């Protein structure tokens, strides 16, 4: 179902008008209220009034994670602190966290955008939505919580810990919808299988997964093991949290909420816009945020535009599922490799789980890639050195033939690598510095 017919299926030229109006208003507000933007535009000699079209947006400098870190905690807020009613923050796994403030209106906007995600996945007031994101400074839990309440679903705010109890609640409360990271869903499936329980015991029919890139194969695996339909959604705390883009029932890309965010896709090296359809870094400008507006924010997430209109009736732009992050990117022999590429390959190999870690090191000036892969619990030939070697070679060969990288393969015991339970997996460990 389309939650907001008027705005999700706008004619292109009406959308463009709305975007330019909201962009101009946002620019006036950030210039007046955010010292970071005022100083930046003054320094660059940029007149806000000179932004007359969406194309003119390109004249403005980007905002980076680093800019926001320097504004820690509240410097980039655009309203007085007394107008802020909620504070969230990024996890800060790669540095100082970024603190994001929401006004009353921001929370309303956010709920309605998450309501769009849920409606597109067919969730209604008849559903029981169990949220397995942590209710914490991160946005996943609260974002989905209020969105699900908005459409009248029954919300079960379980949080991420204790999978065993989670499963029990899911069964007893007749949960129909699981909201979590894809890794967590897989974990639920594995645990049930381990206990010899059938996932059919559950009433689960739909899963909404996000907050880390996941491959199409992982989707198929989750769908078949949990017997559900799995939907991808995309968002990030700096922009609003979940609610930036989402899949509809056609599963052909993620619809961007363009009435609230302007999307650009750039080449992260040249910073130029990529031709439509090509991969690049997603850049967003917020159009309605009051507390924490951002102009041309570089997300570090990699995707591309899906051309043409979706048959679902929405007219908003679609992006492909996130294939990786610019900062997860490994560059070997001029090739950009994303961990998700490796995940795709591991799926083709019997005997390994899609849980892995890439360790980069440098010996005598040569980059060494080590891939630590977890084997499945029923992986037998651990005691036969030759068989293990053959197995390792097979993985190494696939990586060479498909990605062009030469990696040392290390097999790890099941569940020995760090799990993702609401927290993001750190898939790349770079020891080269």
């Amino acid at each position, binding site marked *: 179902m389309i939650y907001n017919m008027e705005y999700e299926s706008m004619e292109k030229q*009406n959308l463009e*008008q*709305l975007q*330019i*109006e*909201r962009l*101009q*208003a946002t620019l*006036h*507000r950030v210039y*007046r209220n955010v010292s970071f933007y005022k100083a930046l535009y003054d320094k660059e000699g940029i007149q806000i*009034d000179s932004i*007359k079209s969406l194309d003119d947006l390109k004249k403005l400098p980007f905002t980076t994670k680093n800019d926001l870190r320097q504004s820690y905690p509240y410097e980039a807020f655009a*309203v*007085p*602190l*007394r*107008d802020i009613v909620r504070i969230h923050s990024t996890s800060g796994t790669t540095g100082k966290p970024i603190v994001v403030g929401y*006004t*009353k*209106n921001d929370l*309303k906007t956010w709920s309605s955008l998450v309501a769009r995600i849920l409606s597109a996945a067919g969730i209604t007031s008849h559903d029981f939505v169990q949220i397995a994101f942590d209710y914490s400074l991160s946005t996943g839990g609260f974002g989905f919580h209020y969105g699900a309440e908005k459409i009248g679903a029954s919300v079960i705010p379980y949080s991420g810990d204790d999978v065993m109890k989670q499963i029990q609640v899911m069964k007893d409360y007749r949960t129909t919808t699981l909201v979590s990271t894809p890794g967590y869903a897989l974990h639920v499936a594995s645990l049930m299988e381990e206990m010899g329980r059938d996932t059919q015991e559950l009433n689960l029919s739909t899963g909404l997964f996000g907050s880390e890139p996941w491959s199409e194969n992982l989707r198929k695996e989750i769908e078949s093991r949990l017997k559900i339909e799995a939907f991808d959604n995309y968002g990030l705390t700096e922009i609003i949290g979940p609610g930036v883009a989402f899949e509809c029932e056609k599963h052909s890309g993620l619809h961007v909420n363009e009435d609230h965010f302007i999307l650009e896709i750039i080449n992260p090296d040249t910073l130029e816009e990529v031709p439509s359809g090509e991969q690049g870094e997603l850049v967003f400008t917020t159009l*309605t945020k*009051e507390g924490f507006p951002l102009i041309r924010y570089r997300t570090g997430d990699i995707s591309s535009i899906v051309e043409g209109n979706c048959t679902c009736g929405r007219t908003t732009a679609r992006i492909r599922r996130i294939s990786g992050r610019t900062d997860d990117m490994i560059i070997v022999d001029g090739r950009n490799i994303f961990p998700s590429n490796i995940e795709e390959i591991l799926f083709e190999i019997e005997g390994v789980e899609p849980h892995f870690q890439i360790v980069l090191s440098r010996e005598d000036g040569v980059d060494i890639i080590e891939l630590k892969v977890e084997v499945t619990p029923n992986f037998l030939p651990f005691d036969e050195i030759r068989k293990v070697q053959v197995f390792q070679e097979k993985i190494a060969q696939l990586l060479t033939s498909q990605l062009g990288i030469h990696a040392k393969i290390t097999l790890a015991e099941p569940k020995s690598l760090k799990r993702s339970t609401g927290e993001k997996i750190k898939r790349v460990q770079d020891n080269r510095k």
Partner: protein
Amino acid sequence: MIRIRNLEAGYDKLKVLKGISLHVNSGEIVTIIGANGAGKSTLLNTIASLITPSSGEILLQGKDVTLAPPDRIVKGGCVLVPEGRQLFPTMTVKENLILGAYTLFGRKKSNDANRNLEQIYKMFPILNDRQSQLAGTLSGGEQQMVALGRGLMSNPNLIMMDEPSMGLAPLIVKDIFKVVETLRDQGKTVLIVEQNAKAVLGIADRGYVMETGSLVLEGSAEELLDNNDVRRAYLGKDYKEFTDMGGRE
């Protein structure tokens, strides 16, 4: 209905509108709120072509009317109910109303004008009773009804109203705004400029906030009512109320 991009206009060297972009959809009541001197009236006067814009674009029902003369705007279905009513005080109510039908003058259209006049008397029965009274002797509220009625005489699609609540008692303002809602229910589109933000946001669908010649906010009426800047600046919510509640800063 109307779509405006980057409109700039002013008086001699004084630039009042600094790049205004806005749109009004068919059947909507849209309001522009803002302080005195923000440029709200200049905007309506520029749309009505009483002021020539220095740059930008105005599309009325898809047609570029940026540099069209005022009568073309009226013939295109867009009328302005000006600030301070601007009636002819020494002419009768009926005469004032008929002036609004000047686009219908001509042999074949006078019937239309008469029909419209009947409609307006139906909408404002008081004007029927007072049709031969001099406009200058009416109360403020009645004068506003004449001004609105005069605008409606050409049967426009888009009605622009400049400060309709000015100088009127709260109860009369309520009456006028009720009429505006009725117009929307009949399928008309309304763009209202107001300083009385609270009253107009009660009937509007969407709104814009204008500050010193620029639009700084767009949103549904509900969103604007919940925006703290709007509440502080235009809804008379006292600064102290906010600080007492918050305690921070």
